[in-house]
């Protein structure tokens, strides 16, 4: 199970990083979402109090560490706001520059 989670985090991180480096603005936005989910999964899997009690209870009556859940909740809220805002920015940019290519959004460099 640990191995599957580790592989999933790695895969999500890789996909997110790859998409964020693409030229299409929509892919960049999707990359941001995938990356933030990679981090949420990372926080949930490793976020055990001193590596002892996991952040999710497996058996009835077992107490789990509530703090990683609080962290993830905060991170989800913040990344949702950021994602909505970046979509709005992309809308403005694509209307103003008539392009969906990051490399053509270069008004400031000349």
């Amino acid at each position, binding site marked *: 199970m640990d191995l599957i989670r580790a592989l999933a985090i790695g895969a999500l991180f890789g996909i997110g990083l790859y998409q*964020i480096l693409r030229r299409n603005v929509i892919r960049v936005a999707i990359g*941001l979402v995938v990356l933030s989910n990679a981090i949420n999964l990372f*926080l949930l899997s*490793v976020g055990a109090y001193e590596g002892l009690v996991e952040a999710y209870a497996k058996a009835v009556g077992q107490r789990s560490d509530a*703090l990683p859940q609080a962290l993830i909740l905060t991170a989800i809220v913040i990344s949702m706001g950021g994602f909505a805002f970046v979509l709005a920015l992309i809308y403005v940019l694509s209307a103003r520059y008539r392009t969906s290519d990051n490399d053509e959004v270069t008004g*400031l460099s000349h």
Partner: protein
Amino acid sequence: MNDLLPALPMLIPLAGAAVAVLLRGNFALQRAWAFAVMLAAFAISARNLWVVWQTGQPLVFQMGAWAAPFGITIAVDLLSAFFAFMAQLVFVFGFLYALGAKDKAVRHNTFYPLFLTLATGLTGGLITGDIFNLFVMAELMVISAVVLTAISDDKYGAEAAYKYFLISSVATFTLLFGIGGLYASYGTLNMADLAERIAAAPDRPLLAASVVFLAVTFAIKSAAVPFHFWQPDFHTASPTPVSAMLSSVVVKLGVYGYIRLSTLLAPQATWLQPALIVAGVIGVVFGGLGALGTHNVKRMFAYSTLAQIGFIFVGIGWGTPAALAAAVLFTFNHALIKSAMLMLSGYLASRAPIKTAAFSVVRGTGKYAPLAGVVFFLGCMALAGLPPTNGFISKLALFQSGILAAHDRTIESTVQLWLPLLLIGVSGILTVVYSFRALMRIWWEPFEPRSPEEKVKPHGDSLLAPAGLVALCLILGLWGQPLLDLVQDVGAWVVQPERYIASIALLR
């Protein structure tokens, strides 16, 4: 009520921003309210600094009365108090500039609430004793700054905001990875508690990776080499009050993070200090050369910030009490000087025929703004580190601390000491070249309108804020002893992390 005082510099602007949103229908009332709120917050952070300095005891506050290390801690030790005081002092002048600015962005009814949340995020990040709260505050700061830039008058505002937001998102992810790694290894988020547990068991597997992630985050926040590329674009396009705050105090959150990282959280990470020296020296050289090659006054000062942050990094990298004190002093003086210089470039842009600070447009316009020329000249002297300004004192203190470290043999390696000292000494001259070249282009060359109807506007933004800041630079240059005493105490305080840790132990 008295217990709440350490948190008030953060809570007052936050509550004030909420009220300012409600006042959006009445613009005059809204901006008066925002300025009053900022003044009140500044008064309390000044009082906090004074109390902490005089008593030698940190001020601590637990959010919601949850005991440490479980609740969110606000811990104001001398370093935090000093940085918060610096940030809010510059913000007061930023508000003053915004009140007298002619930008359309400043008249937007969301400008003042966002400016207040920007101040909240920065102050909160500086005074919090909880590393996850640092993340929340940094996010608040980034979002406010991005939105303020997106509503800029400059037609490239949205582009600059997009670039800044993407790079800041990367910083968010690295910060969260660092926090997650630290929590997994040590089971706490309280910075003092964390420092204690790291010192007790410095061999947990995720520690090294977490420190790297945190170091990358702070490099992006302080726009240091190799993460500086967003800064020139961003500062060229954002509204003047915002770019003045970002280039002077918001980048100092990264500086603060490095001081905390290298003295409190990870003093055993021996690679960090040489890395800071390397990044600092590259920043000084590259920033100076970059500033020489620019075609826009604001862009020039953005590159100049890269160079000045480099000086501070070299001081933190040396790590002796004197060098840390010099770095802190440099931080304070640079905040005053750089905000004044960016406000002056904004003033020039507001007077120019087309609203931009490009050299091709503002060249020669200085003839119609003699008073601004005097202020700009004094600011250039402070930036280049010439007496009798505070820039001279901070550069002197930095070089002195380096030579002192060589004399006491606290730093043995030549590569770490003499080479950086030589390189930053030589590149410091670049500051003189680019700042006085800008002065000559704007004030000494003739004004040549490209068409007959192009005229310099008779009125621009108010000069009150930059003049006040430059006056402060002069006063601190002529009468700098109290500030020097203060930063020496800060330097002595940061090399004793046990004093910070003990303050949280009281709350358990």
